[in-house]
């Protein structure tokens, strides 16, 4: 440690007595020989002296409010990420996550079962019925699907000769 820049970098620690003995002696030697570094040391000495005098004049510094304020600010800064991290950690803990599976299943089943809840006006809900087979035993039969109302109609045509109950007045066929 011979360069001025090196020595100046350690001057503060040297003055505070924080350097190991070997380094401390090396700095001491350099400062004795180097006027620039000696001048720097003297400047730091004066500063230390002034600071000590100032602190001595004011008595004990009340550091408590400062530390409390600092703690508050640190706490505020760390609050939301820390809270979020804690929440995520607890929410995704394996044990709780395992319980989330049945809960999600129950929710899904609940949603799916809503489909089977009959709406108000139960008959209004209708979709096309699929007619798989029709046998009208020789009678004319028509199959009609109204896409607008989604209604499926099987219509037995009236025979010209009439069957059990011929209408007293001829009725028109349905409009399909």
């Amino acid at each position, binding site marked *: 440690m011979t360069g001025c820049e090196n020595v100046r970098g350690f001057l503060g620690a040297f003055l505070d007595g924080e350097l190991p003995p070997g380094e401390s002696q090396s700095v001491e030697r350099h400062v004795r020989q180097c006027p620039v570094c000696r001048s720097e040391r003297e400047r730091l000495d004066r500063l230390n002296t002034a600071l000590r005098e100032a602190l001595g004049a004011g008595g004990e510094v009340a550091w408590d409010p400062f530390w409390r304020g600092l703690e508050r600010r640190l706490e505020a800064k760390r609050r939301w990420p820390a809270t979020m991290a804690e929440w995520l950690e607890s929410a995704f803990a*394996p*044990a709780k996550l*395992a*319980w989330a*599976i*049945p809960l999600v*299943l*129950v929710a899904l*089943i609940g949603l*799916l*079962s809503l489909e*089977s809840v*009959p709406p108000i*006006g*139960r*008959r*209004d*809900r*209708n*979709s096309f*019925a*699929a*007619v*798989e*087979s*029709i*046998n*009208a*035993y020789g*009678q004319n*039969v028509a199959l*009609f699907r*109204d896409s*607008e*109302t989604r*209604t*499926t*109609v*099987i*219509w*037995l*045509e*009236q025979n010209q000769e*009439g*069957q*059990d*109950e*011929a*209408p*007293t*007045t001829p*009725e*028109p066929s*349905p*409009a*399909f």
Partner: protein
Amino acid sequence: MRLRQLPSQALLFSLLVLFGAHAEGAEGFSQAVRVTIGTILASNQSDEVDARLAPIKHQFRAFKYRSYRLLKEESQTVAWGSSATFDIPGGRRLVVSPENFREKQIALKVRLEGGEKLDTTVKLQNRGHFMLGGPPHEGGVLILSISAAAQ
């Protein structure tokens, strides 16, 4: 309760929930069908539409009758594979047999007898309905609204 035991218990609970959902969702779980037959007289003798038919009134646009009157409505709970007979005005009978319930669709075998004869098998959505019309009655025609709901 040890924390380590929780996942296995949750897994067991999940399996039970899944099993329950499967049983509920499996249409075979349904033991019976509620079949409802509404007998409607359609005619041109007036312009009145029965207030009780309001929920399906819009479906009458398919027909060109002006008057619709609900003559009767009857519901029966029918077990799968068995049948129920509904009396229809004019000495007719409607025999309804729920056959199966697959993919949320109810397969119904319907037989009209005692006058006009008709056999049909229809698949309709659970709680859905279809119409069977045409038999003449009292100067008009009968329209049967046939609905089914798995129980």
